[in-house]
């Protein structure tokens, strides 16, 4: 892997993100909705924790992550610049990884704005710091997994809307697998639950960072990006 290529692709994508209104709109809506969930129960319960946000964000990100990632490959494929990019001496995975990193950084910036809520809590009461730190690490991992799935969705088609729907469906299914115990008999339910993004997030958000949960997210990210670069290499699109 040639990091100067990854970095060139990454910086180009960052420039595109912050040069277009799309990124700002997605960030603004994200903050608006997460802010609403934060204040919803804060004063009613009068408890200093972020649980209301941590409960809902892994599901909300199912919509926000594809909105960030949908353009990454599809747009270039449609405008023809992908042909230019792929005839440069670059590896498919370097391009995919650079694009993923850019989307991830945009997401991390959005998430950084929610630290305002943490500051608010610190001013109002004495929140437990452990679960909050763990929750943020969990959100980064979970969002990263959705974004990687989003990159895969984007690599499969030249239509951004199709890319959005594909990634939304895959991420959505992985997110709701956490409820498998309600509909599936026990032995199978455990397995399905283990595949769930939200299940692993709930584990982490309790304040314990288990290597199994981290490995799960990293595997989802790695596999999605691998398949995305495969899709790119085959030059076949939906």
């Amino acid at each position, binding site marked *: 892997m*040639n990091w*100067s*290529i990854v*970095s*060139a*692709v990454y910086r*180009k994508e960052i*420039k*595109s993100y912050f*040069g*277009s209104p799309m990124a700002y709109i997605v960030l603004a809506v994200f903050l608006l909705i997460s802010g609403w969930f934060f204040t919803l129960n804060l004063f009613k319960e009068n408890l200093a924790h972020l649980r209301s946000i941590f409960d809902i964000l892994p599901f909300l990100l199912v919509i926000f992550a594809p909105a960030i990632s949908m353009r990454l490959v599809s747009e270039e494929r449609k*405008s*023809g*610049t*992908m*042909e*230019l*990019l*792929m*005839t*440069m*001496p*670059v*590896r498919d995975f370097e391009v995919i990884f650079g694009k993923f990193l850019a989307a991830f950084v945009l997401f991390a910036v959005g998430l950084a704005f929610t630290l305002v809520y943490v500051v608010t809590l610190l001013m109002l009461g004495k929140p437990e710091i452990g679960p909050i730190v763990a929750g943020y690490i969990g959100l980064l991992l979970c969002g990263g997994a959705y974004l990687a799935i989003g990159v895969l969705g984007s690599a499969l088609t030249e239509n951004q809307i199709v890319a959005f729907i594909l990634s939304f469906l895959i991420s959505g299914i992985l997110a709701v697998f956490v409820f498998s115990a309600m509909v599936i008999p026990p032995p199978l339910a455990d397995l399905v639950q283990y595949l769930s993004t939200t299940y692993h997030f709930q584990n982490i958000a309790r304040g314990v960072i288990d290597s199994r949960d981290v490995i799960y997210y990293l595997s989802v990210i790695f596999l999605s990006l691998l398949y995305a670069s495969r899709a790119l290499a085959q*030059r076949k699109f939906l």
Partner: protein
Amino acid sequence: MIHIENLKKYYGAFPAVDGISFDVARGEILGFLGPNGAGKTTTMKVITGYYPPTGGVVTVDGLDVVENSLETRQMIGYLPESNPLYHDLTVLEYLELIAELRQIPKERRHARIKEMAAITGILDRLGQPISQLSKGYRQRVGLAQAMLHDPKLLILDEPTIGLDPNQIVEIRSLIKEIGREKTVILSTHILPEVQATCDRVVIIHHGKLVADGTPEELQAKFVGQPVVDLEVRGEGADDLDAWRGVRGVEKVERLKNLELEEVHLRLFLSQGTDARAELFHLCVEKGWTLLGLNRQIQSLEDIFHQLTQIDPAREAEEAAA
């Protein structure tokens, strides 16, 4: 420099390129001709490593474009037909990005960008967003992109499309200039472009190679019937039988009948004859005024037309019948 052997590329069951073979020597400017949909662009996409071939071998400087893709891609400068550009970047940002992707050493990047911008005449546009450039300037940016890393091989897919006549002349002389040191493959269906710039011509049609040679060789090989156009004024000059009597004339056709007993004629001669001297003497003899005498040379256009008229589907039908 390039060796193509029995290259095949299928889109599903459709053969876009169906077993073509040719070589391109170092320093040659090759005109790659064919009607729309003949397989030119597909062939170029295989050479540049964008599409994997269905069958056959393509090597650039001895390296296989599939096995050693990264190395061959680094040797090639490519201007795709649609000239894709990142419209949200400025010209300078765009060329900087290309320089990074091409792994041009950091200390040489800016000098190289300046140099190419000067050659392609976009120095004063470096700060402008690409979305604001006219089509001609975008084409120049595309050319600067293709040449930025000083490639051994330059592949240009219809580089003059959409340019105005002045720009076409400029770009052509630029390509000729580049072609002194580099190998160039130039795809086009504009035939004067080939005659103006190329050392050699390859014509493909329906995915198959139909001609390969210098423009002169092709002209010699595909000579049709010699034709002489004639403009004569004089009493009785419109009597076609008088012309048929000249040795070598097989057929006479009246092109235009003008007033004052002036005629335009087209004379078809038998193979290997040149009846111009006899025609002149006939005019002198009859007292006609010879206004024009012009032997038609088979142009590249005629050859192209002749070679790419055949429809394989119809040919197969005829063979079956």
